[in-house]
């Protein structure tokens, strides 16, 4: 793993954001919960990219490109990329920016599943490439 301290800090932040998202979800604030869960997803993905490349990403576009590059020829990473993309679409684009209520139960399930996403990313960060 490259940059272990920075990687750990990013994963810690992802977990904090996940906890916050769950609190918001319990309060019924789905739209904000979705964006915070998206933040947790992005943080965990950024952590994985730092662990694998030593380079830090900033905006969503860079994170998107980073996970796309990591998934090249790597089946597990490609699976994570799919889980990243559905979160980008539902939590970030539809739920937060679009204010869509149509995919309410999908959004809630994805918010809850973000814990699993962080765990998967963390396991991949620790594994040998």
């Amino acid at each position, binding site marked *: 793993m490259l940059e272990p301290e920075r990687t750990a800090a990013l994963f810690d932040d992802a977990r904090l954001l996940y906890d916050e998202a769950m609190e918001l979800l319990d309060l019924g604030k789905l739209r904000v919960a979705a964006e915070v869960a998206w933040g947790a997803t992005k943080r965990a993905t950024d952590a994985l990219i730092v662990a694998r490349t030593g380079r830090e990403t900033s905006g969503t576009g860079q994170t998107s490109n980073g996970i796309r590059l990591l998934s*090249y020829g790597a089946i597990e990473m490609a699976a994570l990329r*799919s889980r990243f993309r559905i979160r980008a679409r539902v939590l970030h684009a539809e739920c937060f920016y679009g204010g869509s209520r149509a995919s309410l139960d999908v959004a809630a399930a994805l918010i809850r599943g973000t814990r699993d996403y962080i765990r998967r990313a963390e396991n991949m960060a620790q594994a040998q490439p």
Partner: protein
Amino acid sequence: MLKPERTSHLFAEAHATYAEGIKYLEEATKLWDRELLRKSAEKTWCAALLATNAFILARTGVEPEPDHEEGTYSRLTHMRKELNDWEMIIGRYATLSHDIYQTAVCEKNVEPVFLLIHDIHDTADYIRDVERLAGVGPGE
């Protein structure tokens, strides 16, 4: 499987469209032509959309409107409770939609070329997987 004849027809169309996409890809890499690569991406996306519509038809009996990405996506999310690991299936669809359709086809951004070529090849696996989940093909 519901509506088996129409489902098979849509899958056959998906395979034929994908094969056209691969022909464009071969030409694109031979001539190093970005527009041909974009055409390959377009055919590949159409093939993925047709296969997804066939899968939805086989599982629900309802055929989504053709060439309507949002409609297909919406029907797919409504099916989520019937799918094992729905995040993966819908996530793969969302990935193809974003990286092939939106980025390469609509925005005409084919960079990085090697990743787009990889995604085009990978779409064959997606088509095969939804075909299997629809109850068509090997293992069913």
